[in-house]
């Protein structure tokens, strides 16, 4: 089966790139100044205490050993123990993902909901008022930093109008409503630049497909402009939109780090950032690997979406 063969080849590629990434991450962290033991015990610790902890942590073992140990741990779900929090890194990351994953998903959903109708509408009447508005929105939206939008939202909506909370996260145990409420403004901040990019791509793709012969065939069948647009043009214009969605993933993750910081959300971005400032390098190391994994898996999903959207790609190896 060609589809299965393709998938296994893709997963093979993913494993190899992930392995290279893990090697790079490990070596960079290894080269970083300061080791775990002295960070954990503070600067005034006695040298022999430090040495004892070093051997306990396995830091005195050779480089290759430690790399193998980390990799083995990653595969078995044991990511080690955080230097500063003293808890397993895996649990720490899982807790934080429970904030970041919903945040990025809501933002993505929001950006699709904004950009798809706007882009299609703009393309339907090129140079009309909606098109002008859409191109203005996409030019400005791409240029505006999302963390600044976050600050403006806090200033205008939370402090100014008194709606929603200016930051913080009550946790999912506080109820879905409360948790969701805390994610609304951050999601909007994250979604604006996304939708600016997507609007632009959608508009261009729809305009290109509108001129295809099969749209004319559809019109010759007696379909109205609107129906031909939504039934024939838009489905065939989605491919570049999905491509762009995939390409935006790294930016979405970067954006999440910043936006979580603005709204003091306990997400994975905040974790990475705090771990860095506290030199909790084992957390940094694992979080970065995690990010890489997410980016690559999402790219794989995007690739799979292609074949759903374009039947011509099915069965092609």
């Amino acid at each position, binding site marked *: 089966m060609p589809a299965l063969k393709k998938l296994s080849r893709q997963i093979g590629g993913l494993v190899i790139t992930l392995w290279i990434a893990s090697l790079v991450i490990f070596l960079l962290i290894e080269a970083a100044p300061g080791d775990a033991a002295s960070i954990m015990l503070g600067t005034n610790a006695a040298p022999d205490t430090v040495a004892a902890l070093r051997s306990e942590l396995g830091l005195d073992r050779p480089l290759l050993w430690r790399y193998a140990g980390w990799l083995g741990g990653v595969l078995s779900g044991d990511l080690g123990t955080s230097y500063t929090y003293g808890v397993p890194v895996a649990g720490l990351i899982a807790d934080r993902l429970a904030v970041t994953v919903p945040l990025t998903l809501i933002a993505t959903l929001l950006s699709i909901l904004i950009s798809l109708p706007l882009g299609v509408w703009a393309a339907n009447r090129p140079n009309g008022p909606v098109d002008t508005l859409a191109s203005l929105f996409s030019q400005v939206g*791409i240029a505006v*930093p999302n963390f600044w939008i976050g600050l*403006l939202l806090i*200033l205008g909506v939370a402090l100014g109008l008194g709606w929603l909370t200016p930051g913080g996260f009550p946790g999912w145990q506080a109820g879905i409503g409360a948790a969701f409420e805390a994610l609304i403004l951050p999601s909007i901040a994250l979604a604006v630049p996304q939708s600016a990019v997507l609007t632009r791509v959608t508009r261009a793709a729809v305009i290109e497909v509108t001129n295809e012969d099969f749209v004319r065939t559809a019109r010759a069948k007696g379909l109205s402009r609107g129906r031909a647009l939504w039934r024939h043009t838009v489905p065939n214009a989605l491919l570049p939109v999905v491509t762009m969605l995939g390409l935006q993933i790294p930016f979405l993750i*970067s954006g999440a780090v910043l936006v979580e910081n603005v709204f003091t959300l306990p997400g994975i971005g905040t974790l990475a950032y705090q771990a860095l400032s506290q030199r909790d390098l084992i957390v940094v190391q694992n979080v970065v690997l995690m990010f890489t994994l997410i980016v690559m898996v999402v*790219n794989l999903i995007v690739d799979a979406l292609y074949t759903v959207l374009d039947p011509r790609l099915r069965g092609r190896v």
Partner: protein
Amino acid sequence: MKRFPISLILGGLITGALIGAALLSRVWTPADPTAMNILNRLKGPGEAGLLGADQIGRDVFSIIMAGAWTSLGIAMTATLLGGAIGTLIGVSAAAKGGVFERLAMAINGVLFSFPPILSAILLGALMGPGALTSITAIGVFMIPVFARVSRGAALQIWSRDFVQAARMAGKGPALITLQHILPNISAQIIVQLAIQTGLGILSEAGLSFLGMGVAPPTPSWGRMLADAQTFLSSAPHLVLAPGLAIALAVLGLNLLGDGLRDLTDPRRRQAS
């Protein structure tokens, strides 16, 4: 979007003003951007200087001007370095093909999954925050972007008749790349340089906002925003000015890039 004159002119003007402000800040600013004046603390626009004063009474307008130098300097250096390396990889991949091309593009894929903030977190662990960290983190992300664009553009030129003719004439891939490929893809590279410098400014602002960019007291737009966060309700002007500066700078470079693209893209030129 048939906007060639407007976007090019507007983009050129904004970018020109940005570069002008950055250069001017080296020799003159309304006030010393690092000089504290506690009496002016958090004063609004007009009360102290054109754009007010910050939490320790420094003149915001002067910091914005000096910040242009920082932003533009880091973004341009990173883009030029990443652009040069990426273009080199891209055109070599197009010229060599085969295993080298696949390997180069695979490495690209890995690099592309490291957005600037992620690399900065890694590099920050290695060498601490600073201009070098920012430049490296942003530059690394530029490599795959330019490699992709230049490879695609180069492959197109490679399939043209005149390149085939040069090949028949016995010229090697390196010489052909130098004589035919690079001159013909330079327009696309320049367009990318403009647009990516804009993205670089955005990334730099993000890094300084997180405290992973240039160290104080070097003025930086991102850190201005981070500082302003504390005084959000008491001094909103501190949030507005740097954000607008970033947005305007990126907008200008994007418009410039779009305008240049409309001007140089042969397909669009035919259409008009």
